């Protein structure tokens, strides 16, 4: 026992010495990697505004010398965007010329010759290639990349790292505003938001006669996961899309939960919304006893980027949903032309999945 004690002491010393060595290193270099939620925006005329990144569901990592501030005397002109929703938004804002690099899923619009496309692995950023583009910012969504790489990007290469992850329509509109501000295209952001709002108002009128009791209940089958089915729940913008289309999501676990098949069967959805990447056979196998499946009450999503990418295009997916379930009330062609607002041709039809 005495010997044990000696060893414990020796070991404690080693741990303490090692931990303090790291601590000393930390204080010597004052390396920080803390997400910033309250950033500042300094306009060209010198006024400083506060911007709370929680309003877009995001945060940022700033290099130390940037002092948590964007200086708009130099709007972003070299952007690496690693989320398709932001790429599409920048396109709609007429700021796509400022994009120098995108991820492989950013296929709307089709990347030009001078845009580098990165094949992203889970957790791995192509730092060298990104650094080679000398970007003003790397925009991505939460999670997925290792802290170590983010640290190198921000603290060593001094590239700001902006995370955008809007979880509702109002946050999507804030995202439009923020990106508009940072790229000097605020007026276009205003136009996109008013297009979104007017369409949402029209839809609300069209569906006004559907009472709460008459709403159809659905289950969104995203894809099979270990131990159940990956789906959407309250608190996600996809759930909000369902609500606006007067559909009742049977899942009441927030976020993007994995639910068991018995959970789904027990909740007896009238319809199953089947994602693009799940086929009918998988559905039949995983939920054979479900009434909606037996009665073929299955609506297949042809292009889920309209549904699962948080940007202005979800207006189309909401209209499309409403058309699928309440065809006498709504038609997809009711969406006002995006072109007349922004002079961009945009395919309206999420059913075909064509991006033009």
């Amino acid at each position, binding site marked *: 026992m005495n*010997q*044990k004690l000696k*060893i*414990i002491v020796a*070991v404690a010393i*080693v*741990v303490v010495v*090692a*931990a303090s*060595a*790291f*601590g000393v*290193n*930390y204080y010597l*270099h*004052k*390396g*920080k*990697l*803390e*997400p910033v939620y309250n950033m500042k925006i300094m306009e060209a005329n010198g006024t400083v505004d506060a911007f709370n990144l929680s309003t877009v569901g995001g945060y940022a990592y700033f290099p130390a010398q940037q002092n948590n501030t964007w200086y708009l005397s130099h709007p972003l002109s070299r952007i690496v965007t690693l989320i398709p929703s932001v790429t599409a938004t920048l396109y709609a804002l007429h700021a796509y010329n400022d994009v120098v690099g995108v991820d492989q899923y950013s296929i709307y619009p089709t990347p030009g010759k001078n845009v*580098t*496309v*990165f*094949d*992203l*692995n*889970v*957790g*791995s*950023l*192509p*730092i*060298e*290639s990104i*650094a*080679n583009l*000398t970007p003003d910012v790397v925009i991505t969504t*939460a*999670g*997925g*990349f*290792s*802290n*170590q*790489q*983010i*640290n*190198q*990007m921000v*603290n*060593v*290469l001094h590239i700001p790292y902006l995370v955008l992850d809007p979880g509702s329509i109002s946050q999507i509109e804030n995202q439009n505003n923020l990106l508009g501000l940072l790229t000097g295209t605020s007026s276009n952001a205003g136009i996109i938001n008013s297009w979104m709002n007017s369409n949402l108002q029209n839809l609300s009128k069209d569906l006004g006669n559907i009472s709460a009791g008459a709403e159809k209940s659905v289950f969104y089958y995203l894809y099979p996961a270990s131990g159940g089915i990956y789906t959407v729940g309250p608190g996600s913008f996809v759930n909000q899309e369902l609500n606006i289309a007067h559909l009742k999501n049977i899942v009441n676990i927030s976020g*993007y*939960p*994995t639910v068991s098949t018995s959970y789904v069967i027990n909740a007896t959805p009238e319809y199953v919304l089947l994602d693009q990447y799940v086929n009918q056979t998988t559905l039949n196998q995983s939920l054979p006893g479900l009434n909606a499946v037996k009665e073929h009450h299955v609506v297949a999503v042809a292009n889920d980027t309209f549904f699962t990418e948080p940007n202005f295009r979800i207006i189309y997916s909401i209209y499309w949903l409403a058309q699928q379930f309440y065809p006498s009330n709504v038609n997809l062609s009711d969406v006002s032309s995006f072109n007349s607002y922004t002079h961009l041709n945009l395919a309206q039809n999420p059913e075909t999945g064509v991006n033009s």
Partner: protein
Amino acid sequence: MVDAEITEKGHRRISLFFTKAVILAAFLAISIIYSTFIGSVNIPVSSITAIYLRQLPFIGGYAASGYTATQYEIIVLVREPEVIGAVMVGAALALGGTSVQSVFRNPITEPYIIGISSGATLGAVIALSTNTSIFGAYSVQILAFITSLAVVLGVYFLSFRTGRVPPIYLLLTGIAISLFISAIVGLILFSNLRLQNETFAWLLGSLSGITWQELGLVSLLVILSGFILSTLWRELDALQMGEPHARSIGVNVERTKLLALIITTVGVSAAVSISGLIGFVGLVIPHLGRMLFGGSNRKVIPMSAILGGIFLLLSDDLARTMVHNEVLPVGIITGLIGVPFFMYMLSRISRGSYVS
């Protein structure tokens, strides 16, 4: 007469050893330089040479230009730390494998088996899931290091039996505790998709994102542990003959085991904290060292370190350049190369030509 013959043979052996050692060291140096010349971004050889000259002390200021600031950043801040990091991590894992295999007298053990890997993963997952920044930008790495040490010590204490730590007990306790901690990690990760992504990268092991800051401290710990282990070569040799024999020739068995394990754990944990779990280096490289340099740890310890450095460096080169604009986790490469080698080794073991 007989003695003279043996001595002559001995001399020939020693000079052969030095030849091999010098060749290996030269190969390592060439690999290091070669590795900084390749990457996903194409930088002209003349620019890289100019950057090298620029980095030389005293005369660096007079060096010609001929490179851009971005190229300088990519070479000095991205490639060089990654290359040196690969050598350090590879060396640490090989050193750890050599010492652990000697302590356990078991050719198919590796340093991870005593709980280093599961402990480090636990620390990383805790840091990621709580988003802590108690140690600044390096919270994940430092927590991984500390929990890894703590878990190994826990395994050591649980294996304590009447004043001794029987190796087989230590081995089984290490495996059991590792499984237990993996279950805890699984519990934390369960239903947290984002965390799963980040941890996945950690589990596969990656050398991308290493900075000079962390590398300084890790190199210090790795070199120090390598130095101390190499002074323990006689004791580790003796342990291979079994504890009763080691004790009978005067080795303080328990002290040696504790010292070797602590030193190994410090070195390997430091390496793992910046690289994640890179497999097979610690298992395979020591055997390669023994095949090339005979069984005695006097040669095997330093030579395994060099071999490990070379192996991981070349694996990382493959990982960085195999797919354009994409960085594969290096753990995948070491596994792809390591497993066939391991199978080959197993067949040699079963034929009894190496260890019966």
